């Protein structure tokens, strides 16, 4: 496309034709304020915060969607514009719960930031009617408080465009408008998959996770409880952000130190059970390939994806790996192997996970996730909740000295840590499957399966493993998963093994990760940066194959026997249920 020249606030920049005024201004070093705009997800020009003046234009334009033309002259920062923006903000806060002090998004709220930028104070609202909404706490994962909703529809865009789930939308009209589900259904009664991308999209405090911080703190402070913790791979790629550490820097060592200071009795690592998952799943894959089992095998680590499959692709439930997710495998092993080894009553063990995920909160309560007669995992925290706990405890996170993880469930290989990036589970499984099928390890210099790396929504690759042709596909974001599975369903595509992650880019971009404001998100490759932290950890780990994890080997030798053994099946595998769409009949 041809390049054009535009002049914005007296700065001339050259941009490709069709560039929006917002992007051209960004190139000129000017940040036009936005509120409803989320690139690729919500481009509806509804909030009017980004209005600008274009010379010769009939009216003010919305910079987020306005395409530049050659020779265009625009102004983004005039007294008139700022007055309009102030008025818009005043109108928004006039029907907004202004109880900011203890709001989960205080100091991390785009509305608050804009009010500060334009000098709108809490008393600048227009007196009049205010909507009053009941808070929807029905979901195991997500809480909606419409009293704080500003109707930007970013959550609606995320639910529909990232995930093709679309269980939330704008209901009613005018002042009565609210974001909710059909027929006033509670979120828990819909086919919501609990991914939490709506929370990540929300500019304010209208959406947040079901908070388990208090329950976890109570367990830690209970002398009768033995509280162990397992952070997921992606947590170390995001936890630094709330403490001012740049995006994409891994904080694995600081995280271990902080968890220990918070008072957990053992600081373990979900990487341990990620390696365990690979051994079970690779075994399952080989079994299915050699015995004519249901193919393609599809990964089961992502509970958002699992619920999506149960609602929208119930015919493909037999394709799902029966492996529990690493979170659940960890809990099942902790309350059997570890409990017996340590001589601790399994009832006394409280297993806490820290996940980049909100769907994990739903997963802990699923059926068939209690192999030892007690829940495998008791509480699942998001990365955000852990950050809040660290802040409340007054831990100077950014300056903590690195620490390691405890035995016997703290060791993880490079294959485990890349679980957090889309394609990572596939890559880890391939590294082990090649060994299991051919008896020979992939050479160290060929361990990077680059075809399945990267943040594209759908990736494909073919590998020759021994005599086998292995066709694989990787999808992240459920809209991409839907596209891929429809091709599989119709027979258009044939694969041996598929990895699906509910969140776009995988867990590093999960719905439980630290909130990234749209002013950053719209111009940053969040997924790519966070994933890089994990791939670096993998590259620098002397062990990069799950089957080389000494602690996992020991677990099999001392307790489980072989991968896929009866005992392994009892502890580490699960079942799924068919669920309906639009089910709320009565």
């Amino acid at each position, binding site marked *: 496309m041809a390049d054009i020249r535009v002049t914005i606030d007296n700065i001339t920049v050259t941009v490709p034709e069709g560039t929006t005024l917002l992007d051209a201004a960004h190139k000129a070093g000017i940040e036009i304020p936005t509120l409803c705009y989320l690139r690729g997800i919500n481009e509806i020009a509804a909030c009017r915060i980004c209005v600008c003046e274009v010379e010769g234009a009939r009216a003010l334009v919305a910079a987020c969607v306005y395409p530049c033309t050659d020779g265009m002259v625009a102004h983004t920062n005039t007294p008139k514009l700022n007055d309009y923006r102030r008025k818009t903000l005043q109108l928004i806060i006039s029907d907004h719960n202004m109880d900011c002090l203890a709001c989960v998004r205080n100091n991390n709220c785009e509305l608050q930031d804009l009010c500060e930028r334009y000098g709108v104070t809490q008393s600048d609202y227009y007196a009049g009617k205010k909507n009053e909404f009941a808070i929807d706490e029905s979901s195991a994962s997500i809480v909606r408080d419409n009293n704080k909703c500003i109707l930007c529809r970013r959550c609606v865009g995320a639910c*529909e465009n990232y995930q093709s*789930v*679309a*269980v*939330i*939308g*704008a*209901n*009613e*009209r005018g002042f009565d408008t609210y974001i909710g*589900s*059909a*027929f*006033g259904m509670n979120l828990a009664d*819909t086919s919501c998959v609990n991914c939490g991308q709506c929370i990540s999209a929300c500019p304010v405090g209208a959406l947040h996770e079901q908070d388990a911080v208090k329950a976890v703190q109570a367990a830690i402070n209970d002398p009768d409880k033995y509280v162990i913790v397992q952070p997921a791979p992606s947590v170390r790629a995001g936890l630094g952000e709330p403490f001012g550490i740049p995006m994409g820097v891994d904080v694995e060592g600081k995280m271990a130190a902080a968890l220990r200071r918070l008072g957990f009795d053992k600081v373990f690592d979900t990487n341990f059970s990620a390696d365990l998952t690979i051994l079970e799943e690779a075994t399952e894959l080989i079994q299915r390939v050699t015995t004519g089992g249901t193919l393609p095998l599809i990964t089961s680590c992502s509970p958002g994806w699992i619920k999506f499959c149960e609602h929208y692709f119930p015919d493909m439930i037999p394709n799902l790996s029966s492996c529990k997710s690493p979170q659940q495998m960890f809990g099942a092993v902790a309350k059997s192997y570890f409990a017996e080894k340590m001589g601790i009553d399994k009832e006394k063990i409280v297993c806490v996970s820290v996940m980049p995920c909100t769907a994990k909160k739903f997963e802990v309560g699923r059926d068939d996730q209690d192999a030892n007669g007690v829940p495998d995992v008791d509480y699942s925290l998001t990365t955000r909740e852990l950050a809040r706990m660290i802040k409340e405890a007054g831990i100077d996170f950014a300056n903590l000295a690195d620490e390691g993880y405890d035995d016997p469930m703290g060791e993880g290989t490079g294959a485990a840590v890349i679980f957090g990036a889309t394609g990572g589970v596939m890559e880890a499984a391939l590294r082990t499957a090649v060994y299991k099928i051919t008896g020979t390890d992939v050479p160290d210099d060929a361990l990077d399966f680059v075809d399945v790396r990267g943040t594209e929504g759908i990736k494909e690759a073919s590998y020759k493993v021994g005599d086998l042709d292995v066709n694989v596909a990787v999808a992240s974001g459920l809209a991409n998963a839907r596209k891929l599975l429809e091709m599989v369903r119709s027979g258009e595509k044939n694969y041996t093994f598929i990895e699906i992650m509910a969140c776009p880019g995988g867990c590093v971009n999960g719905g439980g990760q630290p909130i990234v404001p749209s002013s950053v998100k719209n111009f940053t490759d969040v997924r790519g940066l966070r994933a890089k932290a994990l791939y670096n950890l993998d590259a620098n780990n002397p062990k990069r194959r799950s089957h080389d994890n000494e602690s996992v080997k020991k677990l099999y030798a001392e307790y489980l026997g072989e991968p896929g053994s009866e005992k392994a099946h009892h502890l580490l595998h699960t079942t799924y249920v068919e669920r309906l*769409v*639009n089910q*709320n*009949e009565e």
Partner: protein
Amino acid sequence: MKVSTVPFNGTKEQEAKLLEVIKEHKGEKGALMPIMQAAQDIYGYLPYQVQKIISDETGIPIEKIYGVATFYAQFSMSPKGKYVVSVCLGTACYVKGSGNVLEEVEDCLGIKDGECTADGKFSIETCRCVGACGLAPVMIVDGDVYGKMTPDMVAGILAKYE
């Protein structure tokens, strides 16, 4: 938008008609509005069961359909009763106290404007000027016009339709 508690009584014939309409619009962009309009013609309103058929057949998420149904005044989620009670809220009627008449009707029937009683007998709607301002305030029941209404007349009139 009020969602009716009146049990759904859709027939096989109605469903066949609706499916036919959906088939006609298959693959068409912007088909939701005409389908919803046809569905309302067929059933008289758009209860959950009807929206579910549209959703299942078109693949359009039910929330989207519900969002449209609650946005446009032309769509109703409540059936019409056997007797429609219509209270005029036009200027003349309103200044003569039709607001109080409406309130009395709502109290008597235990439902709000736009709703239908659980037994399907009465539904309430409001209208703007029926051209009988000399009789203000005006109430219409099943086509019968009642003029110079006061709240205390409401119960007696409704009783005639029991």
